[in-house]
């Protein structure tokens, strides 16, 4: 009976990703065309260390990156689960896939959040 809830969250996560990933893509790839001061505060490319460090110590980017990470992991893994389950595997494989995706999702979320937080504290302290 969970699919009703999971799908609703899937759409909600999609909306969140639309906004945040749209922002991320704009900063990373469209900054040349849309002059965004916040994209390259230290000049150069958005992925130069100076700009990365600037974003790392910003609370705004910390929160939005973690939010984007969580939403994207949920959205992507639910989509993958859909594709796999529509191939009609047996009950054992379904359980295994469910468990694997939950564990992998939590692990990856932990890794990403730790990295964002570590970057935040290191960049602020430096």
């Amino acid at each position, binding site marked *: 009976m969970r699919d009703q809830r999971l799908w609703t969250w899937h759409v909600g996560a999609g909306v969140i990703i*639309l906004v945040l*990933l749209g922002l991320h893509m704009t900063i990373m790839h469209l900054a*040349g065309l849309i002059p965004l001061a916040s994209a390259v505060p230290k000049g150069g490319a958005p*992925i130069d*260390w100076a700009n990365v460090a600037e974003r790392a110590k910003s609370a705004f980017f910390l929160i939005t990156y973690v939010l984007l990470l969580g939403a994207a992991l949920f959205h992507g893994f639910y989509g993958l689960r859909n594709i796999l389950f529509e191939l009609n595997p047996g009950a054992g494989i379904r359980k295994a896939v469910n468990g694997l995706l939950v564990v992998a999702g939590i692990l*990856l979320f932990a890794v990403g959040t730790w*990295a964002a937080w570590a*970057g935040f504290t290191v960049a602020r302290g430096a």
Partner: protein
Amino acid sequence: MIENKGRPNRLGLKGWVVGGRWGFERYMYVLHRLTGLGLLAYFLLHIFVTSSRAFGEAAWTQAMSSVKGPVFTIGEYLVFAAFAFHALNGIRLGLVELGFGIGGPIEPVYPYRTSVDEQRPLAIGVMILAAILAIVGGFGFLNK
């Protein structure tokens, strides 16, 4: 109930990709799946590559140099193009699958105007916008 089992005749994975003379939206569904899988694969690697910034500038520079080169640049552009399509089609699907833009129940008079016909302008708009976005984004990659 009749117990005739019969010979299996499911289209299977072929039913996802080929099959018969399918319509426009059917292929957008296929493309949406492919771009989704591609984006997911990239995303999982992306988490690890960008997490290197927690270890300081040297780690970051090393991580960035490991993903330099024409193969990676083309790959990143494909990710951007995939995002352009997946996001815009996702907007269309979010609207349509919640029942907006497909028209309300009608008295069907042949030739039938179905919900697929009602949302066709949305679908075409999505393709055009995605193409524009992919091309515009491509300019940013030409420098690399």
